[in-house]
């Protein structure tokens, strides 16, 4: 009997068939997959250059199947700027964690966004430094325990966690900025929609685009993957509300 085989699910071409180094329960893999699906669906992979950060996802160029540059810590938006200015016909995205983007790279991200550079930033916020073993990040929540705030983050001494989507949305330059999550299927669908929109806007040369993705780090949060999902729900979602913080309007004059 003839079988009518039809592929309904496959690995995106923009994602390599390799094992990643990410810990169990970490959502980097989900985010990589979403970005890869979008690159495939929009047919952008062959003219895309990614920019890897310093942090857990420094090796993401081993997992994505497109050209990549590896930036110094925090400088991915500057590399993306230089690249995109020279090759406006290409698609450029930075993939950055919260230490990389909101701490050491604060200057570069604010100015790239304010210049309205036509690239996309995937900002993975897991409220901690992952690669170096769980230190306090600019996004670490009040009272959250890390190896450099072992009794919990004291915001009277270290300030409040920085809400990057809100901060960058305060800039007058047109942009598309949305915060999403990927720890439940319904959030994954919303995240993909936002990431797809960001790359579409870039493809159409419209504006700077940044998608902040709330992410888990069970290893450094000191809990199981399941508990990490609950912790993100109970804590991060409250302080970092999901939603579109700045939408691009065709007639957006920057006001």
């Amino acid at each position, binding site marked *: 009997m003839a079988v009518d085989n039809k592929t309904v699910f496959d690995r995106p071409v923009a994602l390599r068939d390799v094992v990643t180094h990410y810990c169990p329960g970490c959502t980097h893999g989900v985010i990589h997959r979403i970005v890869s699906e979008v690159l495939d669906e929009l047919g952008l*992979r*062959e*003219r*895309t*250059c990614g*920019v*890897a950060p310093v942090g857990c996802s*420094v*090796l993401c*160029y*081993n997992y*994505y*199947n*497109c*050209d*990549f*540059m*590896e*930036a*110094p810590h925090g*400088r991915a938006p*500057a*590399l*993306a*700027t*230089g*690249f*995109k*200015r*020279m*090759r406006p016909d*290409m698609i450029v995205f930075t993939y950055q964690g919260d230490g990389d983007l909101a701490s050491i790279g604060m*200057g*570069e991200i604010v*100015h790239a966004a304010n210049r309205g550079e036509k690239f996309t930033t995937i900002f993975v916020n897991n409220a901690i430094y992952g690669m170096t073993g769980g230190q306090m990040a600019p996004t670490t929540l009040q009272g959250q325990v890390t190896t450099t705030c072992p009794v919990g983050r004291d915001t009277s001494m270290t300030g409040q966690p920085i809400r990057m989507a809100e901060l960058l949305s305060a800039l007058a330059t047109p942009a598309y900025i949305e915060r999403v999550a990927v720890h439940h299927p319904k959030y994954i669908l919303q995240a993909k929609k936002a990431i797809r929109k960001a790359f579409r806007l870039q493809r159409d040369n419209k504006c700077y685009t940044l998608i902040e993705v709330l992410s888990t780090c069970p290893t450094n949060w000191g809990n199981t993957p399941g508990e990490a999902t609950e912790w993100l729900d109970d804590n991060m979602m409250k302080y970092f509300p999901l939603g579109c913080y700045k939408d691009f309007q065709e007639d957006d004059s920057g006001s």
Partner: protein
Amino acid sequence: MAKVLMKGNEAIAEAALRAGAEGYFCYPITPQTEVAEYLSKRMPEVGGVFLQGESELAVANMLFGAASTGKRIFTTSSSPGISLMQEAISYMAGAELPAVIINIMRGGPGLGGILPAQSDYFQAVKGGGHGDYRVLVLAPSTVQEAVDLTMLSFHLADKYRNPVMLIGDGMIGQMMEAVEFPDDYQEPELPSSSEWAATGAEGREARIIKSLFLDPTGLEDNSWKLDRKYRQMIKEEVRSEKYKISKTNKVLIVAYGTMARICQTAIDELEEEGISVGLFRPISLFPFPEQEIFKEATKANIKSVLTIEMSTGQMVEDVQKVVQGKKPVEFYGRTGGIVPTPDEVKEQVRGIVSKKKTSGKSRKKT
């Protein structure tokens, strides 16, 4: 084409365009800001990219990203700004990217001053950033030479896929001289950047431009691979000029950039007094003209070698190393933006030739 009167900074900017630079990234800092002002008008005329970044830190990393496209790109800055760029220069050397970085040096350390100095020799020649790497360093002594070496810098950056640094002092950037740009600039053919640049993975494997090697054997292999490139530079890229070197010389002056030019005037005037002095001027500071200096310094007629710099003594350490104690190596320097006059140079030479025996130690100004 006919000669035109141009300020050094503007001549450097125009030379970069003539060499095919398609992108320029900058941050204002005295005494080189005229390059940025000039290119803010000229780059759009030639369809290139001009971008003023938010800091030298960002600018150097924009250069890194722009270099990854395989197009010719450059930046200019001055001493404190160049310090901020060292991170990206190290990364670019590690990732084997061509870039031209021009330092119109001012006095340091710290904020220092805005007047000409040569006190960034160590930074340029000995590394500046972290890790086992070198940048090719060229030092012009006239505005015309700044033009010629700027154009050469782009070729060498591509040839070696490595950052090239041109260091001129504030005098080179600020003075006006007649310069000539070549009518039909030609350079030896090089492999296309499409062999290595990030141009999109259409019809080929994806490329990764990186400097991370977590496996120590991989990092060591890469470091030795880079080193082989630096050895090739030492073999092929030594550049220097001699002035009035003869068997009658009693003293051999070693100086570069503006300082060498001032020494030429002093040497001409000393000749009239009957004191014969030769000048050896390194044009490439890395690679340093070691064999050439050794050969000239150790000739029987040379009583002493005199290194003169607009610093408290940096290149003199390399001259001492090269001369290997076979002749005394004296030093004279002014710094902080003070440029030695020909009279000061003459006084130093007279002091050396009038002494029956030289101390053999470097004699610093106090």
